[in-house]
């Protein structure tokens, strides 16, 4: 069983090598002419006007939580989809219940405006 991962492992090592090699090469090969203004954060040629340290909209947090929940749901779907023929009607109804309960959740989020981006 483990033989099937040989190629992926080699690819894994190569990918690390290639990616790190590129970063290393560009750090070594490029010229280094530093001066104070160059090393400032980019702000269209100005000094930085607004600090990047500010709080962002909580909607992003909501999206991330919803993603986690739906991702777990999708993970349950994968074995179900494989076994679909074997489980037949039973599996279908079982998953229908599962998704209806989650559908209620999605509807609730929708009605409460959790999916609005104004």
């Amino acid at each position, binding site marked *: 069983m483990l*033989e*099937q*991962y*040989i*190629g*992926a492992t*080699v*690819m*894994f090592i*190569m*990918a*690390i090598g*290639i*990616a790190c090699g*590129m*970063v290393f*090469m*560009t*750090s070594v*090969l*490029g*010229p280094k*002419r530093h001066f104070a203004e*160059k*090393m*400032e*954060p*980019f*702000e*269209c040629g100005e000094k*930085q006007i607004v*600090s*990047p340290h*500010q709080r*962002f909209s909580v909607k*992003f947090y909501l*999206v*991330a939580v*919803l*993603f986690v929940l*739906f*991702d777990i749901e*999708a993970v349950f*779907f*994968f074995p179900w*989809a*494989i076994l*679909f*023929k074997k489980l037949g*009607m039973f599996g*279908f109804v079982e*998953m*229908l219940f599962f998704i209806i309960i989650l*559908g209620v959740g*999605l509807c609730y989020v*929708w009605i409460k405006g959790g*999916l*609005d*981006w*104004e």
Partner: protein
Amino acid sequence: MIDGIFQFIDENTYLLLGIIKAVVIASALLGVVPLLVWLERRLMGRFQVRLGPNRVGPYGLGQPISDSIKLLFKESIIQNSADKFLFHLAPVVVVFTAIVSFAVIPMTGPFELFGEKMGLWASNINSGILFVFAISGMGIYGMVLAGLSSNNKYSLMGGLRSSAQMISYELTLGLAALCVIVHTGSLNLVDMVERQNSWPNALNLLNPPLMIAFVLFFIAGIAETNRAPFDLPEAEQELVAGFHTEYTGMKFAMFFMGEYINMVTMSALITLMFLGGWNTYILPDWAIIGFVAFAFKVSFLLCVFIWLRSTFPRIRYDRLMTFGWKFLLPIAIVNLFLEAAIRVI
């Protein structure tokens, strides 16, 4: 001594072939990127009634190579307030995940070589499609890290936006793929193609619920790879260049390398899942013909990607999120159960 080497090769043919295949595929993947850049610039030029790059080499083919050499010799600026380690890590993560997720993509059917049954893939994992989703899903950290480490509000906003976009469309991507999995009953990409090899089942695309799944998967795939019209992280008018605002030289190019490799992976996935992979249906099924057919289908899809970029204007961010959550996601769920209902009856 030499006998010993031959004996070693004999005993470990499988292992050695695996290593050689992985090396070849990874290098080929890196070679495809400049070609794709060239193709995109040429096609974009044609779409916009201009020539595109045509000076370096025949048909401008040398352009991407000279560009990459130039980028390699550019100064890599790390501004003072940036977190140096994370700043370097971000492009590494992007390229790394892009290359690794291609490892399980099969490009031909199984054939015999040196007495070993093999095919043109680095790894044939039982749950191949899950592997692609798992690894390409990790690519999101490249953007998050680039945004966090740059200490620049444009980068941070771009990183936040693009990661939120990616996770929103990942759900649709998974649910659309589930339709195909219900249809074929396998997570293995080789199996998926083999199930499409005869006429009544040929081309998953021709099946009505899978047709919808194809459209959903394609749209979500464009959003996943951050291509226009969903290239919000690169919304120049609002965010300068999004999460890679502070990046210069090769590190800047690495983000695009990741994007192009992801594009190839996405096109390959669509080909395998919906377009019959290496099946030609009329020509004899030799491995070479299969590979050419596969490459043809993938390059067609890549051209569609480029075509879409030059056709559609960029979508507004709130529209993008509501489109993903309120339109694509419900359709994907209903469509999955439509397919399941058809299969069960």
